[in-house]
C-alpha cells in the first residue's frame, strides 16, 4: 500500500458563539487506508468533517489534499477536489429517483450535446451552446446507465430508476455511497454509517469499504463505537472536547485504551448487579400489534412481561419494531390489537396521561424530537409531565415559582451541567449527555413503577453513559420494572435480567445474560440465519438454549 499522505489538515480552528468546536486539530490520512475518527458527541468530529467537506470554513488552519492547498467555499468545491461524504442522515430527496438524486448538481447536458460528433459538432461543442445545454436540457440516459453499472459492480442490488422514497434504509445508504463513487472521489468520509444497519448489513459495508480501499480510495470513518474502530480501521485519530488527543495504529490498542483516550480516564465497563427477588408484575401485554408512522405494521403480535425490580432488555436493530414496542408500552402509541395491563389495570387504548398517572415513565429514543421542547427553558422541560401535580397550584392556576424550584432540585440531583438559571437556559443549549440526564431526572423523580427506556445511552458521552446505567440499576433495586431497549449488546448483557430479541416485529428469542449467548443474540437480531461476522469467516450454527451445538 502506498504510504503517501493523501490528506493533511493542519491547525484547524473553528469557533461558534460560546463554544470552540475545533481547537487547533491536525488530521493526517494515508492513501488507501481506513482512518477512524473517534470521539464522544460534541468532541468536534462533525465540525471537522464539515470543514473538510466545504460546508464550513475554518477560522484558521489549512487543508492540503493530494498535495495541493484547498480553500473551499462550498460542498461543490469539495466534490470537485475529490472529497465525498456519506452522511449519517441521508441527503436524499425522496420525490426524485436514485439517478436524479445522484446526477443533481452535475448539470449533464442531454445526449445530443455530450461529446458531440457528427453534424454541427463544433457548434454543439462551443462553450455557449454547452453552457445553455447544461442548463436547459437534462442528460439522464447515459448517467443512468453508468450509475447502474457502478451499482451492479459493487453488488448493491438496486434499480436506479426507482424513487428514493420507495427504498429502505440500507438501500438508501448504498445510494449515498454510490453518489460519492459517481463523482469519482479519492477520499470518502463516512459519518456513523452503521447507526441504522443490521449487523450483516454492517459486515457488507465493511467488505465494500475494503474493496474500495483496495482500489486506491481513502476512507475516513467517523464513529463513537469502539468495536467498529477495532473491526475496520487501520489507524484512528481521537478527538476530545474539540482537541486532538492523538493518532494511533488500531492494531495495538484495546477498547479500554481507546476509551481512555476519548474520555481521559478509565471507564468502567462492568457494573455491579445484585440478585433481585421477583415481585409483582408491572407490565403485562399480549398479542400487541402496532403500526409505524407510515402506517405499515411494525409490531406483529408481541407478548411481553416485566416484573417489579427486573430489567428486561430488548435487543434488535433499529427498524424491527423496537421503537413501536417502546412507544406502545409507554402509552404514547396506540396498538392496533392486543392488551396492555400496567400494575394490574387494563390500559389498552388509554391516553398518554393515563399511562403517566399509572406510574409509567418514558425515556424516548429521540431526545430532541419527542423528549423535550428545545426552544423552551430547562424549567419548562423539567415540568413537562408533572405540571398538573397539586404541588404546583390549585385548579387552573400554575405557580411558576414552585415549578422553578422543582426544576432546580432536578438539575442538582442529577448533575445536569450547563444550566446557570433554570428559567433562562434552554434545552437546546444542553449537550446530549446533559439533556439526557435532565430527561432522566424528570422521568425518574416521579418514582415510576414502570420505566421504558429506548436507547438511553445513544449519542451520550461516556461519562454520562455510566451515570445513566447506574440510574437504571438503582431503579431496579428500588423495585421499578424496567423495559430497556438498546442496540448496544454490551449494555444489555451488563444490565438485563432477561434479554428478548425482536426481529421484524416479533419476539424471536429469549435468554439471560448468564447463558452467555451473545453470538446467538446477534444472530437472532438478524433473523436467525447464518452470517459472516466482522472478524471474517466463521459460520455460526444454531444452538439450543443451553449453548451446546446442535
Amino acid at each position, binding site marked *: 500500500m502506498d504510504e503517501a499522505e493523501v490528506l493533511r489538515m493542519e491547525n484547524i480552528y473553528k469557533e461558534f*458563539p460560546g463554544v470552540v468546536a475545533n481547537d487547533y486539530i491536525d488530521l493526517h490520512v494515508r492513501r488507501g487506508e481506513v482512518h477512524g475518527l473517534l470521539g464522544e458527541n460534541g468532541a468536534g468530529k462533525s465540525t471537522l468533517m464539515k470543514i473538510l467537506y466545504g460546508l464550513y470554513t475554518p477560522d484558521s488552519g489549512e487543508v492540503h489534499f493530494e498535495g495541493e492547498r484547498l*480553500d473551499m467555499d462550498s460542498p461543490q468545491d469539495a466534490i*470537485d477536489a475529490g472529497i465525498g461524504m456519506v452522511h449519517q442522515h441521508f441527503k436524499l430527496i425522496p420525490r426524485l429517483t436514485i439517478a436524479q438524486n445522484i446526477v443533481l448538481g452535475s448539470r449533464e447536458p442531454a445526449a445530443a450535446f455530450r461529446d458531440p460528433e457528427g453534424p454541427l459538432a463544433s457548434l454543439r461543442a462551443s462553450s455557449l451552446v454547452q453552457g445553455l445545454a447544461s442548463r436547459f436540457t437534462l442528460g439522464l440516459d447515459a448517467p443512468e446507465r453508468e450509475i447502474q453499472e457502478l451499482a451492479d459492480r459493487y453488488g448493491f442490488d438496486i434499480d436506479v430508476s426507482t424513487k428514493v422514497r420507495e427504498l429502505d434504509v440500507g438501500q438508501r445508504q448504498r445510494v449515498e455511497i454510490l453518489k460519492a463513487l459517481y463523482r469519482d472521489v479519492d477520499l470518502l468520509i463516512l459519518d456513523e454509517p452503521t447507526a441504522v444497519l443490521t449487523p450483516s448489513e454492517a459486515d457488507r459495508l465493511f467488505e465494500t469499504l475494503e474493496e474500495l480501499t483496495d482500489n486506491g480510495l481513502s476512507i475516513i470513518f467517523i464513529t463513537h463505537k469502539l468495536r467498529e474502530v477495532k473491526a475496520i480501521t487501520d489507524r484512528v485519530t481521537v478527538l476530545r472536547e474539540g482537541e486532538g488527543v492523538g493518532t494511533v495504529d488500531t492494531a495495538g490498542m484495546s477498547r479500554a485504551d481507546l476509551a481512555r483516550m476519548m474520555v481521559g480516564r478509565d471507564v468502567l465497563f462492568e457494573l455491579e448487579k445484585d440478585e433481585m427477588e421477583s415481585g409483582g408484575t408491572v407490565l403485562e401485554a399480549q398479542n400487541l400489534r402496532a403500526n409505524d408512522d407510515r402506517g405499515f405494521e411494525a409490531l406483529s403480535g408481541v407478548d411481553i412481561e416485566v416484573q417489579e425490580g427486573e430489567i428486561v432488555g430488548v435487543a434488535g436493530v433499529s427498524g424491527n419494531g423496537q421503537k413501536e414496542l417502546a412507544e406502545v408500552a*409507554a402509552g404514547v402509541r396506540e396498538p392496533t390489537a392486543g392488551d396492555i395491563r400496567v400494575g394490574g389495570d387494563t390500559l389498552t387504548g388509554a391516553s398518554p396521561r393515563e399511562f403517566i398517572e399509572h406510574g409509567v415513565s418514558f425515556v424516548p429514543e429521540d431526545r430532541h424530537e419527542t423528549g423535550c*421542547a*428545545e426552544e423552551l427553558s430547562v424549567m419548562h422541560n423539567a415540568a413537562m409531565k408533572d*405540571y398538573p401535580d397539586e404541588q404546583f397550584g390549585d385548579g387552573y*392556576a400554575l405557580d411558576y415559582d414552585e415549578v422553578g424550584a422543582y426544576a432546580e432540585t432536578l438539575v442538582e440531583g442529577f448533575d445536569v451541567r450547563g444550566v446557570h438559571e433554570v428559567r433562562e437556559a434552554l434545552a437546546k443549549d444542553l449537550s446530549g449527555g446533559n439533556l439526557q440526564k435532565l430527561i432522566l431526572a424528570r422521568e425518574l423523580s416521579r418514582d415510576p413503577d414502570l420505566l421504558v427506556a429506548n436507547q438511553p445511552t445513544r449519542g451520550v458521552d461516556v461519562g454520562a453513559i455510566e451515570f445513566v446505567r447506574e440510574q437504571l440499576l438503582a431503579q431496579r433495586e428500588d423495585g421499578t420494572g424496567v423495559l430497556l431497549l438498546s442496540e448496544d449488546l454490551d449494555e444489555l448483557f451488563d444490565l438485563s435480567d432477561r434479554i428478548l430479541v425482536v426481529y421484524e416485529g416479533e419476539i424471536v428469542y429469549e435468554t439471560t445474560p448468564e447463558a452467555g449467548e451473545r453470538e446467538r443474540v446477534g444472530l437472532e437480531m438478524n433473523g436467525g440465519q447464518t452470517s459472516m461476522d466482522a472478524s471474517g469467516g466463521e459460520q455460526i450454527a444454531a444452538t439450543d438454549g443451553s449453548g451446546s451445538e446442535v
Partner: protein
Amino acid sequence: MEVDVELTPREEVPAWLTYGTPVFTVLGALLVGSVALLSLDVNPLAAYETMFVQTLTSEFGVSETLIRAVPLILAGLAVYLPMKADLWNIGAEGQLYMGAIVGTWIGLNVSLPAVALVPLMLAGAALGGAVWAGIPAWLRAKWGINEIITTLLFTFIAADIKNYLVRGPMQGGFGGFAQTDTLPGVAQLPAIPGTNVHSGLLVALLAVGAVGLLLNRTRFGFEITFVGSNSEAAEQAGMSRYKVYLFVLAAGGAFAALGGIGEIAGNQARLRAFFAPGYGYTAIPIALLGRNGVLQMTLAALFFALLFVGGDNMSVALGVPAALIDIIQALVILFLITAEFVKRYSVDVSLKRGRPVPGAEVATDG
C-alpha cells in the same frame, strides 16, 4: 474591489437593539414614506406633524385613536394567541367580518332591552368568529391541513358573504347603498362615562388581561406554550395538541369577531361593505411586534391605531391619498423583518481588494 459582507450569529441581543427596534422600525418607515410624500409635492414634516402631533394633542384625535385601537387589539389577540401555539391565524379579517355580521343581525332583529341585547350580540358574534376559525382549526388539528391557507381562503369567502348580505338580504338604509340599517339605540355599545370612547375598549382590555393570565399563570397556558414549541413531545407528555389547536384558534376567532361587532355596535352603528380597512391583516405585524408579551402587543396596536387616525387626518388636511397609510404600514413590516435579521446576526460590511478565486491553486490534473 469587492464588497465583503460578514455575518456572525449573535450570542446575545444587545439592549439597545431590543428596545430600539420599534423606534428604528417606525423611524425608518416614516423616512421612506416621506419619499412618497415628496413625490406628490407634500412636505413630509408637515404631513407627519399633522399625522402624529396634531392627532395626539387633540381630544378628538386621542379618542379616535382609542376607538380604532379596539378592533386592532382584539384582532391582534386573534393572531397572537394562536402564534403561541405555533399556528398562524391569517384569517382574522374574515373572523372579524363574521362577528360583525352575526352581531349586527342580532342587533337588528332581536328585540330585548340593552342589558340583554348587547351581551347577546357579543356572544353571538364571538360564536360566529369561533366557528369561522374553528373549522380551519379542526382541519389543522385533525388532518394537519395548513392553517395559513385555510384561514386565508375562509377570509375571502367571508368577505364575499359580507358583500352579498350587505347588498342583499341585510341591506337597509336609504339610497340602495351597500350597508344595513342603523342599529337601534339599545343595540349600540354605550360610551365609557366621561369620554367619547365606546365600552368596546373595556372589552378589548379585558381580553388582553385574560390572555395574559391564561398564558402566564395557568396550566392550560403551559400546555399552549409547550405545544407551540414541540407538539410531538407535548402529546407524549399527555397534553392534547388537538385541544390546544382548537381552543387557540377558536378563541382567536372569537376575539377577532368581538373586534368586528365592537366596531359596528360601538363606532359605526351600521354594517357597511367596507367598514374595516384591513384590521385583520394589520393584526399580523401587531402580533409580531408584540411577540414577547400582551402588553407589548397592545402598545403596537395603539401605534397602528394612531397611524390610521393620523393618516385620515393627514389625508383630509393635506389632500394626501390615504393609501399612504398602507404604504407606511407595509414599510413598518418591512423594517420589522429587517430588524429581526439584524437582531440575530451582526453584519460587517467592508471593502476588500480583490482576492484570488477560491481553490484556484488546486491542480486540475490527475
